């Protein structure tokens, strides 16, 4: 039984496969062809091969059994795909059909036939997204008004329908089925009346009746359409074509099937479609335009035909409650609505979110949803265009000039005061941005031009063009990209312009607090460029991270706007860096502005450097008013411009500054393109210029065309005056409405341009024979004379054209926006600043003799010229000692008051001594004596705040020794007196760029310490030589009384000598050589200034004048030790004085302050001084030792070796003993 069943099934399959072969390959076996057919044998062979192929491959294959769940998954994937492509109607139709199909009962033992058939269809599916199929087609095919809610009733009543196939009325049982008729979506009024269930039910019944009438129409001949509904226009479905000649009955008849005792799918007659019927001349024309479009066979035919299909339903409903619904239709069609939307997008009609019209086949909600994106895009484009026009219609800011030029100024331009400020209007940056906005709006509208032409019926003129009027779906698809970019433009306009201005209603700037109603042009420009810079980064991050399908359009749009808007700013910056002038910034947008000294102080002087040009600062926080990406470099760029001015000033104005190799605008454009083309080699990039893309025109032509279209490059500079080219005689194309001498910018309104030009002429900035050079413009025709396009402007246009079509710029892996702008805008400017700095540094070294001045400072402050320093120090020391002698030679220690008034009563003597010392020295390093001066400062009042400073004693060096401070501090007081001397050396300009005035304090601190050290060493040497007379040596018992005095004197000599040699060696040799090397290598005055500061740091450390804690610790005790040395010498002098008074002592060697009698220091006092000295020395050595334990400090290591006498004294021995 089973085998016979299988055999029968195999026989059926074989027969069916034969049918498949016959239908698909169009070959038949001999038995099936007529006797006249030729060549039958070939047909038999072909049929056999194909049949065997089918039989074999359907029996032996590797496909698994059909899994219903996988089929469901495949359906879900398809649904999702349709949803992604916004084909929601098709998605709904698929749901309806599959749901209905699954409810079919299969009378077979093969499992999951539903899934098998659906799987088969899915496998055979080619491109579901291409088909024109909606849920309306599905509803018509299913005979429903909605999602199969009456299927059950249909099945229940199927037999009744067959028995009464000619009935007209639907079964009343369908009333039990729930219905959510889509008619409720057709009008809002219907929703308001939704509570009336009876009326809605009657309406639904009417629609059902109409649909049923449509299905029965071919039989009844009530109406016939010329084309089957929903049939693809491409003719892929050929069932209608092959059935034209058949004469078969309607499906409801079921005659043939009824005669077959066993139903077979292959016997089923399927040629009962009403679409197969011939077109009827009585076809109901619902819209002439639709007919016209259909006659062209365009893509809109399917939608038009689908719309017409439901009109019978409407007609049926018209007689009932649906009469008001249909009556609301004002004759609008989808084509008309789409055309209106396109007009709104073109700016030719106001953008309306609610179209105010109804079309038959779409509910108002569906229509509004379909038009929403277009309405949003139209409104956005309109808003952006208004904002751009508001800016462009406003006159440019006017530079303030002297009050003498105010006569004749037009009203509306306030009186002008000082030079340098600007009033009113929007600067070139804002105007360039606005022009770029307008250009982008035009580009977006041009993208919709094909649809507009089709809507106007212009596209049908081409041969073979069968495109009809654009459909709503086409509009939605076309507007998607336009709407997204329009939103980007709107967001950029809102961010870059002031809030009120971004709406396009603030052309007068009435919200501003500034006179004239306008914000500072620099603030506007900074805000604009900063916002665009941030937008570039944000859009780039969004497109690269989220992968939202933006395709980089947002980034490219932002970057194009930034490139366009930055051109005027970069041009002004270029002029500043090239010439040190701000005349290229008439609107006052640059971060540099003229200062109070501009025009007052002579160029090249220090006053002009300081006050000629200053940063334009924000009144709120004092920060520089500049774009964000330049904020960190404004000081550097300001100094570069001032350096250029300084270099150009020279002697008699003959100085030169290095020329800029290329324009900053060109560098910017090239750098942007190079950065975005990093994935391509230069050769490819050059080739890409020629063949950028298949749709891109030649690079030169594109550049020229882009330049011609670029309104941002047509804006006027309004102040750059050049000789006026002669008017063209044979010019007959000019606008004769404008007087000669005026330049009418394409980027601004005619009135605004005329007003601007007249105001400039009235202000004296422009004459009737002057031409206003375009700021970033090209093609500025003046009286018809051709104006050559500058390279900078051509580069900007070329970059814009490239960005518009480049795929590299839209790549997610492109250069980050931050580094892109830094590389394109900041790096070239900084490179220029570096070149200028290098040139200025060369001039400082060579022409202005920076090295000689540094050597002079070394000689004066640091004792670099040994002879002059010795001479000057000797004079100073003599003045100190003379004070003691002239004070009466008191045997006792001087009081503290007398100590504070030691020496320097007359500063002129010190100055004279210094001048003599400088004049006597022949080293050549010393400056002119007239440039050097020394002042005597008043005595310092003891101040705890000065503890640890140079000259201040940290604590009593006598400790608990019991020695009175009055007698013990005489030597130290003399050291302190030296700190009152203050040297000054006049630094010529422009050497003050490297050696500022503030260095004088540090130089004086070092000079004071070195003078004190020299004084201590001289005192000890003098004390040791005092007893070297023959008489003293012949005295019984000798004069070197006591071991403490002898030992202390030896240790003091060693300490002062070692410290002095160490400091002088470090300062005058090591540090100085390093300074010379650094200054020679310096590439800018800043580098030289830093090298000099570094030199001063080292010198101050060696001279114990550094704020570093290590040197501060050493300073107190070192100075105490030096004070003890002076005190020892003073004690010896006092002993000599006492001996002379008592008639004792010996003749001393000649020396200041000793008179003629020498006597040794008493042993007790020498012991106390030795204890104090050793404690101080031990402290110094311990500090050095501890410092060396934590690091390597060559200078400290050397100092320890010197002071410790190669370890002879030991770190702790002397101090504690």
């Amino acid at each position, binding site marked *: 039984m089973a085998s016979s069943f299988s055999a029968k*099934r195999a026989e059926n399959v074989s027969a069916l496969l034969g049918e498949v072969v016959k239908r698909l390959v169009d070959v038949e076996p001999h038995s099936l062809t007529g006797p006249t057919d030729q060549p039958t044998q070939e047909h038999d062979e072909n049929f056999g091969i*194909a049949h065997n192929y089918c039989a074999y491959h359907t029996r032996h294959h590797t496909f698994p059994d059909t899994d219903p769940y996988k089929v469901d998954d495949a359906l879900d994937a398809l649904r999702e795909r349709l949803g992604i492509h916004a084909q929601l109607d098709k998605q709904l139709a698929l749901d309806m059909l599959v749901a209905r*199909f699954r409810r079919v009962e299969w009378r077979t033992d093969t499992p999951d036939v539903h899934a098998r058939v659906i799987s088969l269809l899915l496998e055979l599916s080619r491109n579901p997204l291409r088909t024109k199929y909606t849920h309306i087609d*599905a509803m018509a095919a299913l005979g429903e008004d909605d999602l199969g809610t009456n299927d059950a009733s249909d099945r229940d009543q199927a037999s009744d329908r067959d028995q009464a196939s000619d009935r007209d009325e639907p079964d009343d049982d369908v009333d039990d089925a729930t219905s959510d008729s889509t008619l409720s979506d057709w009008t809002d009024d219907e929703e308001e009346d939704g509570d009336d269930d009876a009326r809605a039910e009657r309406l639904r019944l009417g629609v059902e009746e109409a649909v049923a009438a449509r299905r029965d129409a071919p039989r009844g001949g009530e109406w016939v359409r010329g084309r089957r509904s929903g049939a693809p226009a491409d003719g892929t479905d050929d069932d209608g074509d092959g059935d034209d000649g058949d004469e078969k009955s309607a499906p409801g008849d079921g005659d043939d099937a009824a005669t077959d005792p066993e139903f077979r799918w*292959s016997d089923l007659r399927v040629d009962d479609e009403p679409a197969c019927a011939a077109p009827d001349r009585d076809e109901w024309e619902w819209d002439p335009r639709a007919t016209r479009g259909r006659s062209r066979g365009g893509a809109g035919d399917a939608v038009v035909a689908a719309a017409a299909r439901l009109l019978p339903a409407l007609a049926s409903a018209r007689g009932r409650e649906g009469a008001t619904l249909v009556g609301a239709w004002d004759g609008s069609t989808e084509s008309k609505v789409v055309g209106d939307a396109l007009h709104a997008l073109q700016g030719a009609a106001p953008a309306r979110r609610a179209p105010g019209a109804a079309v038959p086949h779409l509910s108002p909600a569906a229509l509004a949803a379909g038009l929403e994106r277009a309405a949003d895009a139209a409104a956005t484009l309109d808003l952006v265009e208004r904002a751009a026009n508001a800016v462009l219609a406003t006159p440019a800011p006017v530079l303030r000039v002297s009050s003498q030029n105010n006569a004749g100024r037009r009203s509306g331009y306030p009186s002008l005061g000082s030079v340098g400020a600007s009033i009113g209007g929007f600067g070139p940056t804002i105007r360039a941005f606005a022009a770029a906005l307008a250009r982008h709006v035009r580009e977006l509208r041009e993208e919709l031009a094909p649809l507009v032409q089709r809507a106007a019926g212009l596209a049908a003129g081409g041969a073979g063009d069968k495109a009809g009027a654009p459909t709503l779906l086409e509009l939605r698809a076309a507007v998607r990209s336009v709407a997204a970019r329009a939103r980007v433009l709107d967001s950029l306009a809102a961010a870059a312009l002031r809030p009120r201005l971004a709406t396009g209603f603030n052309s007068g700037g009435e919200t501003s607090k500034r006179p004239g109603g306008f914000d500072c042009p620099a603030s506007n420009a900074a805000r604009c460029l900063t916002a665009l810079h941030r937008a570039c980064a944000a859009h780039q991050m969004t497109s690269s991270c989220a992968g939202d399908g933006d395709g980089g359009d947002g980034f490219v749009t932002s970057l194009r706007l930034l490139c366009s808007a930055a051109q005027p700013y970069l041009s002004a910056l270029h002029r500043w860096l090239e010439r040190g002038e701000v005349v290229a910034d008439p609107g006052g947008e640059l971060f540099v502005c003229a200062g109070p000294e501009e025009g007052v102080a002579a160029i090249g002087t220090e006053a002009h450097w300081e006050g000629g040009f200053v940063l334009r600062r924000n009144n709120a926080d004092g920060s520089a008013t500049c774009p964000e990406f330049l904020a960190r470099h404004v000081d550097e760029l300001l100094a570069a411009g001032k350096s250029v001015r300084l270099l150009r000033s020279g002697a008699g104005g003959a100085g030169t500054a290095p020329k800029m190799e290329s324009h900053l605008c060109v560098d910017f454009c090239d750098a942007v393109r190079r950065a975005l083309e990093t994935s391509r080699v230069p050769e490819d990039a050059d080739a890409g210029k020629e063949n950028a893309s298949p749709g891109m025109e030649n690079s030169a032509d594109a550049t020229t065309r882009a330049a011609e279209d670029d309104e941002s490059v047509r804006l006027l500079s309004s102040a750059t005056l050049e000789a006026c080219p002669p008017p063209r005689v044979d010019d007959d194309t000019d606008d004769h409405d404008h007087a000669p001498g005026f330049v009418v910018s394409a980027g601004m309104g005619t009135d605004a341009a005329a007003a601007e030009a007249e105001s400039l002429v009235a202000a004296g900035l422009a004459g009737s024979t002057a031409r206003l050079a375009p700021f970033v413009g090209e093609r500025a025709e003046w009286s018809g004379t051709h104006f050559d396009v500058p390279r900078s402007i051509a580069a900007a246009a070329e970059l814009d054209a490239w960005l518009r079509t480049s795929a590299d710029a839209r790549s997610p892996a492109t250069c980050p926006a931050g580094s892109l702008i830094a590389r394109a805008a900041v790096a070239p400017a900084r490179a220029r600043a570096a070149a200028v700095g290098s040139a200025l540094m060369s001039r400082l070294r060579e022409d202005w003799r920076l090295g000689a001045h540094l050597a002079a400072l070394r000689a004066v402050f640091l004792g670099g010229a040994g002879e002059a320093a010795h001479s000057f120090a000797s004079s100073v020391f003599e003045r100190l000692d003379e004070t003691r002698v002239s004070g009466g030679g008191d045997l006792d220690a001087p009081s503290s008051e007398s100590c504070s008034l030691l020496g320097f009563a007359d500063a002129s003597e010190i100055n004279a001594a210094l001048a003599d010392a400088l004049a006597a020295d022949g080293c050549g390093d010393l400056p002119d004596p007239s440039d050097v001066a020394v002042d005597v400062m008043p005595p310092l009042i003891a101040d705890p705040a000065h503890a640890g400073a140079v000259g201040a004693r940290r604590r009593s060096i006598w400790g608990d020794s019991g020695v009175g401070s009055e007698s013990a501090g005489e030597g130290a007081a003399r050291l302190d007196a030296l700190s009152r001397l203050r040297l000054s050396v006049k630094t010529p300009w422009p050497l003050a760029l490297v050696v500022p005035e503030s260095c004088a304090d540090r130089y004086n601190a070092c000079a004071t310490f070195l003078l004190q050290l020299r004084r201590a060493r001289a005192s000890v040497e003098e004390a040791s030589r005092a007893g070297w007379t023959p008489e003293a040596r012949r005295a019984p018992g000798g004069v070197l009384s006591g071991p403490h005095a002898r030992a202390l004197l030896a240790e003091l000599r060693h300490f002062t000598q070692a410290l002095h040699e160490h400091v002088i060696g470090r300062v005058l040799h090591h540090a100085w050589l390093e300074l010379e090397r650094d200054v020679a290598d310096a590439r800018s005055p800043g580098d030289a200034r830093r090298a000099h500061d570094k030199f001063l740091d080292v010198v101050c450390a060696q001279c114990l004048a550094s704020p570093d804690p290590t040197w501060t610790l050493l300073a107190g005790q070192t100075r105490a030790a030096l004070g003890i040395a002076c005190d020892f010498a003073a004690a010896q002098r006092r002993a000599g004085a006492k001996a002379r008074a008592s008639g004792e002592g010996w003749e001393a060697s000649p020396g200041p302050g000793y008179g003629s009698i020498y006597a040794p220091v008493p042993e007790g006092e020498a012991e106390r001084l030795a204890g104090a000295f050793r404690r101080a020395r031990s402290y110094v050595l311990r500090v050095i030792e501890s410092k060396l334990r934590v690091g390597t400090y060559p200078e400290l290591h050397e100092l320890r070796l010197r002071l410790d006498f190669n370890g002879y004294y030991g770190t702790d021995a002397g101090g504690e003993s």
Partner: protein
Amino acid sequence: TTMDNVAVYQAKETLDIAHEISKLLDCGLDKESLAILIALCENGVNPEALAAVVKELRREAAALQADA
């Protein structure tokens, strides 16, 4: 008989639905071909193998037409 009529009606309805699905999916099938293929599926032929065979036959037919 009445039952046969019901079966025929249901079959036609099923075929209509399947044909609508095939149109939506752009399968390129007319109703006759679709009916045959449904019959094959009903007889246990693997749909994926059947689809592969149909595609191959289409390609061959196109090649034959091109040669002609």
